[in-house]
């Protein structure tokens, strides 16, 4: 498999399922290629490339997924999506002028909470990142971070006051990251928040946030707005990182122990040969 094949032959979000009505179509760009997503009057979704060739289609987690290549694997599974009692919320795409890989890496990072999401997801002086566990699970070819703990002044829309929050992170595909966090109204369960990223080019992307929550009280629009506000704070960082591509050369940027997830993610990308959106050697 060549480098570009890894990126080409994967699934990416191309539309929000329930926003595409019968007889409608829309055009999106995936890795510099224009795709037309259309839903026939029979409700069936087709994705067509500019040269007329049909592209693979999968529908799951509120999104339409496609590829400019031929994925040799099914779309990853999110088992929690099938659990009773969860509310599924899709937040819509946000355009980011940064590498899709930078966007995923930022989603895996907790150390920025007190500085970027001040008084919401973190607050000084609670800045310490305790040791946590990171592994590349070879059987499933995924990056996992577990036993992550961090103090949050307002952990979720439904949280009233500060608390230590538990997290887990899962990277099932290079442009997807899923986080599990303490669910305030239901101790013992995890809220699930995922970020699905569609690369438009190597340094431009659309990021779709999707949530599967145990929350019966909050209004849908408030949940979306909360998530959007958080993500817009991240975007102001992401669009000002230099270089815009994610450096895979370990000499380029200096990590510490708190960055263990990011180190594993970069190593995993390099090992897979996923270089779309990455910078291999320092320039």
């Amino acid at each position: 498999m060549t480098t570009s094949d890894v990126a080409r032959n994967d699934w990416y979000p191309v539309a929000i399922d329930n926003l595409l009505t019968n007889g409608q179509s829309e055009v999106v760009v995936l890795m510099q290629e224009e795709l037309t997503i259309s839903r026939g009057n029979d409700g069936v979704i087709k994705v067509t490339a500019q040269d007329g060739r049909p592209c693979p289609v999968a529908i799951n987690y509120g999104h339409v997924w496609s590829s400019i290549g031929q994925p040799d694997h099914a779309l990853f599974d999110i088992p929690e999506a099938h659990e009773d009692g969860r509310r599924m919320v899709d937040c819509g795409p946000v355009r980011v002028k940064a590498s899709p890989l930078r966007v995923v890496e930022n989603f895996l990072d907790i150390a920025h909470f007190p500085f970027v999401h001040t008084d919401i997801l973190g607050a000084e002086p609670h800045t310490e990142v305790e040791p946590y566990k990171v592994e590349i699970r070879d059987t499933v070819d995924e990056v996992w971070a577990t036993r992550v703990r961090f103090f949050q002044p307002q952990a979720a829309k439904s949280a009233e006051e500060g608390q230590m929050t538990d997290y887990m992170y899962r990277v099932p595909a290079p442009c997807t990251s899923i986080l599990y966090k303490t669910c305030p109204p239901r101790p013992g369960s995890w809220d699930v928040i995922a970020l699905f990223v569609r690369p438009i080019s190597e340094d431009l992307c659309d990021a779709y946030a999707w949530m599967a929550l145990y929350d019966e009280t909050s209004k849908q629009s408030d949940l979306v707005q909360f998530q959007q506000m958080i993500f817009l704070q991240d975007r102001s960082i992401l669009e000002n990182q230099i270089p815009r591509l994610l450096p895979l050369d370990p000499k380029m940027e200096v990590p510490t122990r708190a960055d263990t997830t990011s180190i594993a993610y970069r190593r995993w990308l390099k090992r897979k040969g996923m270089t779309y959106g990455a910078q291999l050697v320092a320039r």
Partner: protein
Amino acid sequence: MNADHSEFVEGPDGWIPVALSVDLPEAGVMRAVIAGAQPLDLVVWRSRSGQVSAFDNRCPHRGMRLSFGFVRGERLSCIYHGWQYGEDGGCRHIPAHPDMTPPTSICANTYACQDHDGVVWVSKGADNSDDLPNFGGQGLRSLSVERGETVLRKLLAETHLPVSLTSDMQMAEAAIATQTRTSLVLEARSDAKNLRLMVHFQKITPDRTMLHVQTSPELPAELRISLSRWAERFRWSAENLGTMINSWDATSQETHP
């Protein structure tokens, strides 16, 4: 030919004016760009105690632009994860590991920087021995002009300055009293005795220049306001007027193929 060509390949040597001192107050942080084939993107900041420093505008941790950061005491703190850097560029504090002393290897890339004669100067070279002006001016304003430095120097040599305390429009011919590598001084006879205007040039690109303007000290406020308006008009005419300027541009562009 003139010196601009090599400067846009190598970037200028020696001290470069990047701001008026009054525009970078205590705990202030700003971005500065210095011309070159690979232009330098810098963060320039002033500590609480008044010390000025310049670094590459890129945090060694995850590449965030340090010009979005903030000053805490004698340190510049990155906005992304709060890493703090001292004026020597060394990382002093990593909030994710508050009890750890950061290794000395974690270091922002630094440039020589000093506050002199009301202007903040940066140098990228090792040789910082060249003379800086001592004009004793008072900061008026900085302005970015879409013209190369050579053209601006020529236009300034022919300019008229407002000189009257009562009318914005009463102008007198100005003459260049001093010209140096980075700066020039204009003189005009005015109601308020000796009117001098110091202009310091910061090349951004071959066609864009930042002018840092000072006046002679203790000018009446009315005259300083007139001079500030004059600077606005000067920018407008430099950017918009006439064939003569265009032909100068063509000459100066020949030297930047």
